[in-house]
């Protein structure tokens, strides 16, 4: 029910789309597990300063994904309090497309914004094996994602700056593996 159709003539000119590509020294199957298993998903899904607890993860097309996103680090807790937001958000979504080791799309239902009609936000992930490496292409449509808009605008900028410092060292490592 989203308006991702291509029929609007202006869509391609102004619809924001962010594509991020990463190459990891790993097998595609290992990457896939980080998206499609409870332990895998919990090990990295953010944002920074938050941890997630997966309630349900059904690894199949149409399968449900629901989790609690919990402010964990002192900075994140303080930021959420400042914004008058609860420290824990129940988040739900589903795997729309699910082609093991090839492609998945993860649809989040954004229905917790006061004053905003519920909408869906889609993340598409494509996996490609290339020799000893695995390439992952993440496609995001942030203009739908009012949630992140507010989070970012209302105070995540400072979080990001801190994050940069935090990742100043270790971030070089994965960067070196990028295609």
């Amino acid at each position, binding site marked *: 029910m989203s308006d991702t159709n291509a029929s609007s003539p202006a869509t391609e000119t102004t619809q924001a789309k962010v594509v991020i590509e990463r190459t990891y020294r790993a097998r595609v199957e290992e990457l896939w597990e980080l998206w499609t298993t409870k332990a895998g998903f919990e090990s990295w899904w953010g944002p920074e300063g938050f941890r997630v607890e997966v309630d349900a993860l059904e690894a199949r097309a149409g399968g449900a994904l629901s989790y609690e996103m919990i402010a964990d680090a002192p900075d994140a807790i303080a930021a959420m309090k400042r914004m008058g937001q609860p420290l824990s958000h129940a988040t739900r979504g589903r795997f729309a497309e699910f082609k093991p080791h090839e492609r998945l799309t993860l649809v989040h239902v954004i229905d917790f914004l006061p004053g905003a009609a519920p909408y869906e936000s889609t993340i598409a992930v494509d996996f490609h094996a290339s020799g000893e490496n695995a390439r992952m292409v993440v496609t995001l449509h942030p203009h739908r994602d009012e949630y992140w808009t507010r989070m970012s605008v209302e105070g995540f900028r400072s979080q990001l700056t801190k994050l940069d410092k935090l990742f100043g060292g270790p971030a070089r*490592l994965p960067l070196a593996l990028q295609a």
Partner: protein
Amino acid sequence: MQLHPFEALADPTRRFIVGVLRSGERPVGEIVGQAGIHQSGVSRHLRILQESGFVSVRRDGQRRLYALRPGPFRELDAWLSDYRRLWEARLDRFGVALEERRKDRGATKKEPRR
């Protein structure tokens, strides 16, 4: 009420109007001609775009000419950069998690079963 830039551009007709104005200043009649919807609809969308700062209007005799203003687009651009960095950081963590899993496996599976 002023909409957030993303909300202002969430509507396909407004995105279409912005698309038309990308080639320069236009009178409302010309925008109506291209958008293929009723003038009152276009005027409403133009008003919303104007209120959220995307569009300016000036009088030229009988006509009202609409043009894009760069401010909100820059804001969007800055926001998108932040958004991208947020995801870059998220995928950094993905890489770290991947490494840790590999290490764990290497440690526990020196002698793989069967």
